[in-house]
Every structure is written in structure tokens, then in C-alpha cells.
């Protein structure tokens, strides 16, 4: 996976890119700053898309605080670039992740370390939040509301709206402040153990990414080879028996190789869309 020459070059260049130039702890963030972040987090999914999912909206939420923390423009650019990476978490729990990440930004952790933490905390919270809010809170509030509505009362709408949003907004703002405070109180420990913390965060982050590849990338072939009486379903009969999620892994590693060769994501998207449409047309996807 990557010839040794490649990876050496890579790791060197990353080390440089990875660290912030200004290593002094950033300006303190006020309650107003955190509130602003929480408000902005409402647009987490404004530019939702299937390549990076919530990336740009996530960055949008962090921007004012990042601008305050990174007075050095190059550092700001580094931070922003990092936060354009893939992210998908639950929109109600996102401020929890944001709070922690801002504390890490303030303490000028390395970009890769911050990104690992973002994934390590954010990704599992996606499923947790879906189960708690989309599959539990929502049907409960909806059920109560529908019940009242079917009796002809406008209170159905009102009760639903209030019930749901009391939970929603208390979480959104509560978690933001809670997480930031928690993160800040951990700054000294983090600072003293920068490398170790980064390493630990990367372990969790990369493990989760490995799992995400198998979970989030949906790619399977509908290819069936019919030769006389014999029908071989390539996906069910061959791939799934050998290595489930083989195609997602293969495709991700291919993309990774191309990214390392300098292909731009746009090119990869065009490639992917073309492949998908052609595949659908030719009947193998």
C-alpha cells in the first residue's frame, strides 16, 4: 500500500503541513462565540453532498471561531483545509463535536490529530443520534401531534413543534457549551502529550474510517453471468462469500491512489458519475 519511497516523501511533506506555525494557545472563546457557532450549526447540511457530506457546512459553523483563533493567515488556511474533509454526524449532536474541536484548535493541535478526533467522535454519533432523534423522539412527538390533529385541533401542530424543539435547541446549545468547556479543561493535558494524543486519536480515527468504508460506500455489481444453465451472481455468489464490501474497499483504495497522484476530487467525481451512469446503462451496476 504505497511504495516506501512514496510514503516517505508523503510523510515528510505532511509533517510540515500538519503543524500550525503559531503554537501559542489561541484567544479565549466567549459565550457569544460559542452561541454563534451553535446558531451557525443549523446550516450544517446547507451544502450537503455525497462526496464530503457535511464538510462545508461544518466549516461554515466553525469559521468565526477559527478566524479568531488563527490570527496567522497560513494557519487559518491550514485549519480550513482540514475541515473541508469528509464528515457525517448527527445534526443535533454536532455542536458537541464542534466544542471539543474548537478547544483543540485553540491548543494548536496538529491538523491530522484534530481531524482524527473529529471522525472518531463524530462518526459514531451519527448512528447514535439517528436512533435517538429520528427513530425515537420524532415518532413520539409526531404521534402526539397527529393524535391531536386528527381530533381537529390546531394544538397538534403547536404541541409537536414546541415539544420537539425544546429538546432540539437545549441539546444544540447545551452540548456546545458543555463540550467546549470540557475540551478547554483538557488543554493542559493534551498540550503535555501532544504526540501521544495525536497517535491515540489517529488510531481511533483510522479504525473508524476503515469501518466507514465498509458501511458508507455502497457499491455492488448486478452482474450475473448466465452461461447456458449456469447462473453466477458475481456479487452474491463470489464477492460476498470471499470478502463482503470488497468493491467499496477497492474503489476507495483506487480513489486514494489517484488522490495521491494528484488527481483533483472533481476529476474523481466526474469519473465516478460516468462510471455509475455507464454501469447502470450497461447493466452491471
Amino acid at each position, binding site marked *: 500500500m504505497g511504495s516506501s519511497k512514496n510514503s516517505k516523501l508523503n510523510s515528510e511533506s505532511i509533517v510540515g503541513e500538519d503543524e500550525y506555525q503559531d503554537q501559542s494557545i489561541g484567544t479565549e472563546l466567549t459565550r457569544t462565540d460559542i452561541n454563534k457557532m451553535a446558531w451557525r450549526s443549523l446550516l450544517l447540511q446547507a451544502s450537503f453532498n455525497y462526496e464530503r457530506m457535511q464538510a*462545508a457546512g461544518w466549516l461554515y459553523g466553525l469559521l468565526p471561531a477559527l478566524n479568531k483563533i488563527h490570527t496567522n493567515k497560513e494557519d487559518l488556511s491550514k485549519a480550513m483545509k482540514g*475541515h473541508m474533509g469528509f464528515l457525517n454526524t448527527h445534526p443535533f449532536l454536532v455542536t458537541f463535536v464542534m466544542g471539543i474541536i474548537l478547544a483543540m484548535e485553540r491548543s494548536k493541535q496538529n491538523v491530522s490529530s484534530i481531524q482524527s478526533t473529529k471522525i472518531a467522535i463524530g462518526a459514531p454519533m451519527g*448512528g447514535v443520534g439517528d436512533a435517538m432523534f429520528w427513530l425515537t423522539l420524532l415518532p413520539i412527538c409526531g404521534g402526539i401531534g*397527529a393524535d391531536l390533529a386528527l381530533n381537529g385541533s390546531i394544538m397538534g401542530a403547536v404541541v409537536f413543534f414546541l415539544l420537539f424543539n425544546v429538546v432540539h435547541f437545549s441539546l444544540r446549545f447545551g452540548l456546545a457549551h458543555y463540550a467546549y468547556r470540557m475540551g478547554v479543561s483538557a488543554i493542559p493535558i493534551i498540550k503535555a502529550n501532544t504526540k501521544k494524543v495525536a497517535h491515540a486519536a*489517529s488510531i481511533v480515527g483510522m*479504525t473508524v474510517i476503515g*469501518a466507514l468504508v465498509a458501511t458508507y460506500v455502497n457499491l455492488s455489481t448486478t452482474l450475473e453471468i448466465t452461461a447456458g444453465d449456469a447462473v453466477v451472481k458475481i456479487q452474491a455468489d463470489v464477492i460476498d462469500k470471499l470478502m463482503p464490501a470488497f468493491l467499496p*474497499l477497492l474503489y476507495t483504495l483506487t480513489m486514494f491512489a489517484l488522490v495521491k497522484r494528484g488527481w483533483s476530487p472533481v476529476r474523481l467525481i466526474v469519473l*465516478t458519475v460516468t462510471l455509475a451512469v455507464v454501469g447502470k446503462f450497461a447493466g452491471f451496476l
Partner: protein
Amino acid sequence: MEISLLQAFMLGILAFIAGLDLFNGLTHMHRPVVLGPIVGFILGDLQTGILVGGTLELVWMGLAPLAGAQPPNVIIGTVVGAAFAISTGVSADVAVGIAVPFAVAVQMGITFLFSAMAPMMSKCDRMAENADIKGIEKVNYMALLVLGSFYFLWAFLPIHFGAEHAGAMVEALPETLIDGLGVAGGIMPAIGFAVLMKIMMKNAYIPYFILGFVGAAWLELPILAIAGAALAMALIDFMKKSEPVQIKNEEAEDGI
């Protein structure tokens, strides 16, 4: 009852707003139980709106976008369905039947949009590179505008021109293309992960990537369980690194 142009326009605006709320804001005023009464109010029949809203709420019960995947669109289903129910006097169930093809078309349309939005991310990468805060913000705002307008059209057109005429439009959609984009949407996170791995992947983390993959692909463990086990591994590693010093003392004690 006839629906006036103004009313159709106002319903379009309502769909615009509710459409945004489905993914942003998330006050859930876009759920039928709230949206129904508003449609009723606009069309001058609040009471029917409330009842239709309640009925549709049950129809969409438990359907929410998980991990970005779209169920049949609740907003167009409600706005168009409720409008038909109120204007033609048919029951809510019948009205839903009429609205379903539009809800499904929008479901696919959103999938399309979310795939089409992907190339924008590279533009954002360049803005990030230049620390262009305003740029990032503008992208997000523009995206909202596009998304909202899309909803506006899908509410306004069927309501203004009638289901029959609008229905033709739906059928005109090139199916394999749309399906292909759906497939592309499913694959696209691979690119996101590739970009991520470029930042984060060092040789030292390849094993953990493998372990995560094995856990999810073969053992079918949920992300939470894998994150738990990964945390355990990280902690073991974290604590081990500080040991060498200790060990030396121990060895000295043990006289080895």
C-alpha cells in the same frame, strides 16, 4: 375550488422554506402535522389542513433521512397532497396517492442534487487554501438557494398546472440517468474518504484501517462498537508508551 396563482406561489414559497428545514434548521416545521395546517390556512380551509396533516404525519411516521439517504419526500408529498385534498375535496388517502409520484420524483431529484453538489467541494478546497471565509459562506448560501428553488418548482408546477400535466413531466425524466446518479451518490463517499486518508493516513495507521474494515465488513459490527474497540486499542497504546521508563526501574529491581 380553484387555486389562484397567488396561492400556488405562496405554497411554492412554503415548500421553499420547508425544504430547507428538512436538512437545515431542522425545527421540523416541515413535518405534515405542522405543514398541513399552513397549507390549509393558505387555501382558506384550516380545518381540512389540520386533518390532512395529521393523516400524512402517520403515513411518513418513522421516515427520516438516515446517513444522507432520502425516503420519498415528505414536503412535496404534504404540500401537493394537502393542496389537492383541499381543492378537490377527495380524502387525504386519495390525495396522497396523487402526490406519491411527485414525492418519489423529488426523492430522486434530491439525490441528484446531492451528487451534483459534490464538484463544488473542490472549489471550497481552493477557498479554504486561500482562507477565503466569505467564499465558503457564499457557497453554503447559494446551495440553500438552489435547494429551496428546486422545492419551489416541484410544489408550484403540479399545483398550478394540475397533477395530470405535471405528471407528464415526471415521466419525462430519463430513468437510467437518474438511477445512475443514485448509484454515483452511493459510491461518492469513497472520494471523501480518499481525501481524508490523504491527510490522515500514515503507514503506522494502516493496520487500524484494516481492523476497522474487518470488523465492519465481516463481523458487521456497528460503528459505535468499532469505535469502542478502537478506543480500547488506542488507550492500550497510549499507556504503553509511557512505560519504558517504569520498566527499567522494574528490571533494575528484579535484578535482570
